[in-house]
């Protein structure tokens, strides 16, 4: 049923329908509305879950780990500083192969402190073994949670996932969202069947330590699981399309790419603005398209190369920076396009919530086509 609602609320409503048994929550702007909504749902007997008001994000994810290992589907949400505090636990959760789904309401990292959006937080954990899905709008944000649980809990995968949606830009804006019913969600996402769990009937020791004799092979297996996640995502996305009419069976999605000479590459809500900019540029006769990356991890390198065949200029919009070496997405796209002959440029844009308008996207295309790239776009040189 289509309803206009705040992004955070849409996420909370979908999470409720995914029936987590344990929710652990620590508030941090701009995720707070999600966890507040969930608390109200529990208080109203709408959500049958144990809601733990933990004492920090570090504990939030640790509690999720315990509950997941004991056999429950779990949920948490965070961003920015909170995700950074969870850093240690993130690696631990992925290594322990717990299928935890966590919303990241993307926000920039301090210092300097900023509550506004960019994607530095989740991207900085790209090595952790967590799957990463990025939503373009609030419908996708909602849908991706269902898909995430399905992919993570697949016994072929058993990895945790970040479902990322841009803080404030998506979390706090009202958009029309089609929320499925509880029955529809139950049909798509059955009850959690753990691969193994803490159980006095079948005791196991979880999280033992690995000597040099074993460590590498464990890490290899996680890497392999991450690669299998591609197929699992496509499968889950196709099933989603069949049931709900919105297809997610692609790790990347092209927009007006077919005959494009220049392609933008981006993740998240900026894709919405970029699509409008592309339409305007197309109307003016320019052959521009957009490649939206939906799954950042596992990184769809070959899929990107395939989608951008024939494109001569690529402009990557990076809402993050690997300080000293440019944007993370740009670096990885360049690697995927190695040998293709395309000119690939990386633009650091919109950090810390700086607004991006259609004319900014067009300006980036201009720069790329002139061969000027690998830069911070839109610096206020007057304050430097």
């Amino acid at each position: 049923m289509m309803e206009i609602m705040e992004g955070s609320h849409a996420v909370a409503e979908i999470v409720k329908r995914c029936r987590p048994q344990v929710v652990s929550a620590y508030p941090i702007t701009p995720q707070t509305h999600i966890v507040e909504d969930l608390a109200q749902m529990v208080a109203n007997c709408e959500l049958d879950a144990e809601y733990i008001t933990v004492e920090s994000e570090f504990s939030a994810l640790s509690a999720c780990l315990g509950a997941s290992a004991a056999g429950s589907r779990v949920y948490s949400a965070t961003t920015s500083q909170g995700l950074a505090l969870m850093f240690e636990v993130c690696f631990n959760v992925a290594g322990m192969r717990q299928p935890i789904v966590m919303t990241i309401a993307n926000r920039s990292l301090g210092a300097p402190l900023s509550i506004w959006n960019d994607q530095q937080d989740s991207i900085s954990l790209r090595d952790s073994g967590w799957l990463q899905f990025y939503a373009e709008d609030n419908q996708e944000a909602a849908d991706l949670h269902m898909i995430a649980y399905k992919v993570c809990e697949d016994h072929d995968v058993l990895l945790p996932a970040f479902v990322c949606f841009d803080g404030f830009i998506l979390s706090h804006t009202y958009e029309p969202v089609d929320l499925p019913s509880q029955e529809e969600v139950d049909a798509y996402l059955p009850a959690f069947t753990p691969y193994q769990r803490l159980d006095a009937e079948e005791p196991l020791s979880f999280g033992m330590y690995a000597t040099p004799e074993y460590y590498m092979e464990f890490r290899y297996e996680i890497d392999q699981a991450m690669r299998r996640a591609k197929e699992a995502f496509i499968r889950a996305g196709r099933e989603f399309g069949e049931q709900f009419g919105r297809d997610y069976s692609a790790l990347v999605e092209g927009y007006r790419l077919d005959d494009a000479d220049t392609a933008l590459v981006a993740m998240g809500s900026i894709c919405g603005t970029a699509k409008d900019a592309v339409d305007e540029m197309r109307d003016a006769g320019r052959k521009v398209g957009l490649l939206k990356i939906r799954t950042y991890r596992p990184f769809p390198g070959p899929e990107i190369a395939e989608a951008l065949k024939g494109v001569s200029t690529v402009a990557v919009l990076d809402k993050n920076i690997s300080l000293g070496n440019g944007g993370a997405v740009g670096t990885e796209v360049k690697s995927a396009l190695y040998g293709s002959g395309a000119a690939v440029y990386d633009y650091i844009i919109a950090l810390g919530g700086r607004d991006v308008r259609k004319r900014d996207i067009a300006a980036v295309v201009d720069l790329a086509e002139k061969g000027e790239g690998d830069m911070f776009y839109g610096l206020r040189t007057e304050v430097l």
Partner: protein
Amino acid sequence: MALRIGCAAPPGRALENKTGAWRVFKPVFDPETCSRCGMCALVCPEGCVHETEEGTFEPDLDYCKGCGICEEVCPKKSIRMEKEEK
């Protein structure tokens, strides 16, 4: 042998590690003077002191590390640590 997901393992494998090889001193139990109090079995950090059919106690030398706690706690001084001849 396939790795277990999440670096997990079922019980029992520690027994493959025969820590008796660590020993320098080995305990010698004298059933004659044993009062059958069971303290030795209770406080062995390896859990490798077992009750015999007669109700006295003996060490499992596969695992005994020769720490000497049993000798120290025995109220009858019925256990003696001896340098082991290898």
